[in-house]
């Protein structure tokens, strides 16, 4: 089962790398979102896959009995989803704002911070 998931993670990462190589901000953003999902699946796989019961303690017991799924990767993934979701929302707004203010979605055309016609430093005193 792990190997199937490994292939799935690979597919996610490959698609995200392909998208991130684009010059268009929106594709890069979608690529980053996919990368984040790929990593979440990776954490899930790293915690070992079991087709057993959820990690809940029975009402009359004091500890977990038998084989249960690993709860930690789920907590980690939840945290990672929450954080990357909020930062992704910020970047999405920022990308849209950049499209409005800079007039382009193409990173080649975004040279506001590093102008192309920079004259270079003075060569003599």
């Amino acid at each position, binding site marked *: 089962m792990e190997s199937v998931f490994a292939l799935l993670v690979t597919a996610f990462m490959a698609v995200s790398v392909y998208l991130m190589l684009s010059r268009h901000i929106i594709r890069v953003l979608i690529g980053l979102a996919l990368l984040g999902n790929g990593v979440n699946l990776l954490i899930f796989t790293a915690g070992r896959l079991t087709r057993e019961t959820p990690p809940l303690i029975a009402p009359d017991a004091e500890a977990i009995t038998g084989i249960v799924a690993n709860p930690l990767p789920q907590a980690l993934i939840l945290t990672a989803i929450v954080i990357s979701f*909020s930062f992704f929302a910020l970047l999405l707004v920022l990308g849209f704002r950049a499209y409005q203010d800079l007039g382009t979605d193409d990173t080649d055309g975004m040279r506001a911070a590093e102008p192309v016609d920079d004259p270079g430093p003075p060569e003599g005193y």
Partner: protein
Amino acid sequence: MMGTVIFRTLSPLISALTLMLAVFVTLRGHNDPGGGFIGGLIAASAFALLGLSHGVPAVRQALRFHPMSYAGFGLLLAVCAGLLPIFTGRSFFTALWTFPQVLGVEIALSTPMFFDIGVFFVVSGAMTSIALSLEQRGGGV
């Protein structure tokens, strides 16, 4: 603004139901699926829906304070819930429970619950703020 009569008539009702669902999901979060984050997202979607049907100024007026102020309040609540154990000589974020009897019913009060409510306000405030600014001007953080 999307102006069909059906949408404008139904959206306050749907928003109100969604907000109730958000509170329900937040409070059941300790022992069942749910919690502050998902509850906050549901609440933010309710405000975003209202913003679509009635316009952003109406939502801002209904909220009274800026959405980010709600987020600040939530953050304050969450950290205070974590700081409370300092008075009982326990570690940061240690869960404290109390079970007062209110009208003969046992109510479970705990610091994780207040933390979760704080998360609810942080998420709903921040996400409402982002959604409203996107709806209003089509831009701006």
